[in-house]
């Protein structure tokens, strides 16, 4: 049997995938902001034994539940979850690869809309994250600053006038602030301009990662771009600098799309048509295939070559992932069986219109 704990969550689409900005929906999937924070007077989590980690977990748990504005938060202890359930949370970007590993006293607090995820005892005592759709950088920024004010006036943070917020890793010291977004760049991948985009990003102090963040591979032409430096510049400066770079990357992708439409429209139309055909009829589908083919459809929508709801593509993007398939159908499955149920799911969703 598959645990039912996350059944409710598996049946709904998080806010960051549900609302699609008409202006950016085909390129900017989502925006994430995060803050790294630690509790004053406690060793950093990597150096704690189970017992002290549990103590801090309880301390943070009690503080979070005491905050009126965070009442909707559900807090999970990682050691009480099965691997499949943790994988499920990872697929929803609610926890990191790091929390996938078992560990007493490590956990996450999530709100119903999945706008907020607060990881407890990851690399730092607190990793506060918020998720927003499209280009909602300001919404994400306001939200995370507000949550930080609420938690910071309930728990005492480790802070130093000269260094700023103190984190386990010196790469997060200072503001502890990082802003990132998932960008869908299929045209740049086809034409090869992606290399220029990546080099540009590095020159602008951005990191580029795969779909699940650090150390993960790129799926469906979706790249994660994130700000790199945290010290010596304010949160607002980091945000504004990052937005400028994202604008630039979006413009480059648009240029490549225009080029493709001009030079190889038939080829693109063919790719979209084939992708649609496969997704609508195939009996067995791997997750990689689904990511790849839905990427073509998403580009098709962006180029006005295909009339389809981007929300529907987002839904497939989310639900077709391995742990999601199993929780959704309430059945533990090996890869081959998953491919069958994935085929069923995608076929059904796409033929419903």
């Amino acid at each position, binding site marked *: 049997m598959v645990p039912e704990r996350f059944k409710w969550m598996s049946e709904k689409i998080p806010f960051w995938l549900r609302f699609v900005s008409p202006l950016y929906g085909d390129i900017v999937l989502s925006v994430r902001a995060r803050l790294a924070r630690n509790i004053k007077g406690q060793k950093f989590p990597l150096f704690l034994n189970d017992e002290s980690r549990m103590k801090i977990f309880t301390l943070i748990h009690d503080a979070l539940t005491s905050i009126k504005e965070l009442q909707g938060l559900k807090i999970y202890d990682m050691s009480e979850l099965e691997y499949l359930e943790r994988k499920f949370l990872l697929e929803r970007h609610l926890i990191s690869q790091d929390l996938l590993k078992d560990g007493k006293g490590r956990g996450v607090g999530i709100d119903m809309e999945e706008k907020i995820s607060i990881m407890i005892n990851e690399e730092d005592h607190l990793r506060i994250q918020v998720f927003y759709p499209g280009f909602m950088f300001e919404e994400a920024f306001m939200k995370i600053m507000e949550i930080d004010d609420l938690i910071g006036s309930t728990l005492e943070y480790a802070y130093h006038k000269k260094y700023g917020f103190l984190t386990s890793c010196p790469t997060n010291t200072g503001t502890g602030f990082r802003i990132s977004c998932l960008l869908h760049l299929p045209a740049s991948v086809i034409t090869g301009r992606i290399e220029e985009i990546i080099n540009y990003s590095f020159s602008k102090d951005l990191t580029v990662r795969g779909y699940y963040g650090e150390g993960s591979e790129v799926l469906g032409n979706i790249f994660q771009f994130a700000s790199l430096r945290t*010290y010596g510049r*304010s949160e*607002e400066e980091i945000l504004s600098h990052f937005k400028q770079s994202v604008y630039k990357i979006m413009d480059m992708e648009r240029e490549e799309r225009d080029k493709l439409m001009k030079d190889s429209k038939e080829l693109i139309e063919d790719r979209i048509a084939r992708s649609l055909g496969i997704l609508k009829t195939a009996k067995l589908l791997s997750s990689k295939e689904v990511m790849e083919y839905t990427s073509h459809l998403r580009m098709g929508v962006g180029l006005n070559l295909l009339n389809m709801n981007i929300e529907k593509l987002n839904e497939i993007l989310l639900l077709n992932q391995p742990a999601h398939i199993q929780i959704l159908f309430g059945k533990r499955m090996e890869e081959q069986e998953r491919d069958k149920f994935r085929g069923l799911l995608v076929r059904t969703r796409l033929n419903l219109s």
Partner: protein
Amino acid sequence: MENLKDLCEKCKKNAAEVKLVLYIEGKKKIMHLCKVCAEEESMGVNMPPPSPPVPKKKPPLLKPEEDLMCANCGFKLSEFLRISKFRCEKCYESFEPHTTKILSQYHKASGHKGKVYTGVYSPNKEFKLKVLKRALDEALKREEYERAARIRDMIKEVEKKYGS
């Protein structure tokens, strides 16, 4: 003509016709594959990015007498330089001048800028308005009216919530 080298590295059945360059976790890998396997392998991983150019910093050789210890947690500077993680908040001061040097090298800046922590809740109204108004200008400049309207609503909300 067909020797082992010319067979597809993956299925080892068909002739290798495609040279595929893959980037796996930032490492370049070249594979000689048949068409079928090449298509499978390249699915969705056409161009994963190489890792960001984080300079591989070799810890400067520390003479034993130069090593420092954090008085609060007993962590050694040499350990910190090896794993790049502090053990407790006091390590920062304990490992000076190395802390300042490492922070300014990595972030290419010196001294904390941004949010000042007081431990007391404050609505930060002026700060919020400043950020939003700047975003509004930017959205208008780019003729993104839908977004501009949303930001205007946020400004109204902040003004209402904290009094104008």
